């Protein structure tokens, strides 16, 4: 018989003992170590995953922040550009206004000057005209003209009203030996002398002594003086009155008509300057 029963029983026991010992020293410990390592690795993986997720989240956050920053920068730049543009426009507008004001002032001054110049020209022209006219008239004055002057003078005194006559007649009353002096550049013809003397003695005073004196300075014209009072008609005087009236007329209508034209001329000139 190959089986030793005692040995068999002992081997069974040995096997049980070995099982218990190996369970204690081998299986439990090894499996525990493996499980722990597994857990550790799992937790490390989990940790890594969590870190990766947080890193991803952080990255997204940073990207969002960067985007926001970019947007803000864009906005700021746009605002700055807009502000600069407005500032530029304001400065340009200011400069334009300043230039306009300067130009306006200059235009005004120019216009005034032109007006004044035009006025001077007109006045001087008028004066020249009258001076020439007077000179021409005086040089050309002949018997006929003198006669006409005397005639006109006679008509003038004959046409005198009472108050004027009164003013003339007052003077001889204070001074009995009054003398009426008639002056003229050329001698008054005798018949005209008679007519004047007749009118004076009849209208002013019967005792009035009438003298006729030549006076070169008078030019074309005739003058009557009765102790300080004077009645006269001279070409010179007539022309002066005429000249005054002409100048008055020029002053009244000159600027009203001339100003727009001169103004336009200035503007045209100015614009032409700007273009060049």
């Amino acid at each position: 018989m190959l089986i030793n029963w005692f040995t068999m029983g002992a081997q069974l026991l040995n096997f049980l003992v070995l099982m218990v010992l190996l369970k204690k020293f081998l299986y439990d410990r090894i499996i525990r170590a493996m499980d722990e390592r597994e857990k550790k690795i799992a937790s490390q993986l989990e940790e890594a995953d969590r870190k990766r997720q947080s890193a991803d989240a952080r990255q997204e956050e940073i990207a969002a922040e960067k985007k926001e920053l970019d947007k803000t920068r864009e906005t700021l730049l746009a605002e700055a550009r807009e502000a600069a543009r407005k500032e530029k426009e304001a400065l340009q507008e200011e400069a334009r206004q300043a230039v306009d004001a300067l130009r306006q002032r200059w235009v005004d001054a120019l216009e005034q000057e032109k007006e004044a110049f035009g006025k001077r020209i007109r006045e001087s022209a008028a004066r020249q005209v009258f001076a020439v006219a007077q000179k021409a008239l005086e040089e050309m004055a002949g018997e006929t003209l003198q006669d006409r002057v005397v005639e006109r003078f006679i008509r003038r005194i004959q046409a005198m009203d009472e108050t004027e006559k009164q003013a003339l007649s007052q003077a001889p009353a204070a001074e009995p030996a009054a003398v009426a002096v008639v002056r003229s550049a050329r001698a008054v013809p005798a018949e005209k002398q008679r007519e004047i003397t007749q009118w004076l003695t009849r209208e002013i005073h019967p005792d009035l002594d009438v003298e006729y004196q030549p006076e070169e300075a008078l030019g074309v014209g005739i003058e009557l003086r009765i102790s300080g009072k004077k009645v006269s008609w001279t070409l010179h005087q007539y022309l002066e009155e005429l000249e005054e009236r002409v100048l008055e007329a020029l002053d009244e209508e000159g600027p009203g008509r001339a100003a727009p034209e001169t103004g336009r001329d200035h503007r045209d000139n100015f614009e032409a300057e700007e273009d060049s």
Partner: protein
Amino acid sequence: MGPMDLKQISPDQVVFWEWKFISLNATLLFTWIVMALMVVAAWLITRNLTSDTRISRWQNLLEVLVENMRNEIREIGREDSRSHLVFVGTLFLFILVCNLLQVVPGYVPPTASLSTTAALAIAVFVSVPFFGILSRGFRGYFTQYLRPSPLMLPFNVLGELSRTLALAVRLFGNIMSGTKVAAILVALAPLFFPIVMHLLGLLTGVIQAYIFSVLAMVYIASATRARAEREQQGAGSTKPRKGRPSGG
């Protein structure tokens, strides 16, 4: 050469000390030596275990062994059971170490004794109903002997016995013959050939350890898995079938 001569078939016959029926023979001696080696090695290695990612080579070796045994058991038994690992794994490691130490001169594997293999086969024979009852209950385990019909009871019982016997004799025959062939060859041609036969013996020893433990696991699995399979089948429409055995 060894403690055995060629005429001795089993190391049981090499007796060092005897008192009445108690005898201290070579089988027990070498079994203790193997046990001591295994326990001391396990203790030495597992003394400084680490759960770090860097581990010692010895720890790595044990982890590979244990992990592969777990995987094999999981594949066969379809469940991850620590008690299965302890039983089947110890069977495998014990037989493996016993067989591999053949290369040591003067060593006689305890597995070359029919007493040892019978003891291991009996352990399997007992553990099958043990794990079966543990997982399926007393009635649940024993009713499987009445399937597919009560007429099959004798055959089922015979099957249990015969497969236990087969386990014991297969291991014994392989290892014993291996050692005998090696011993005979050493006597006939002391050079070269014994080395080849030793290599063959190592291969046979590893294969036998694997076969023994895998068969043990298959038997245990068939005892425990029947329940799981029936539960899977009866999940839908087997209410009356379930009520009958519990009622009877």
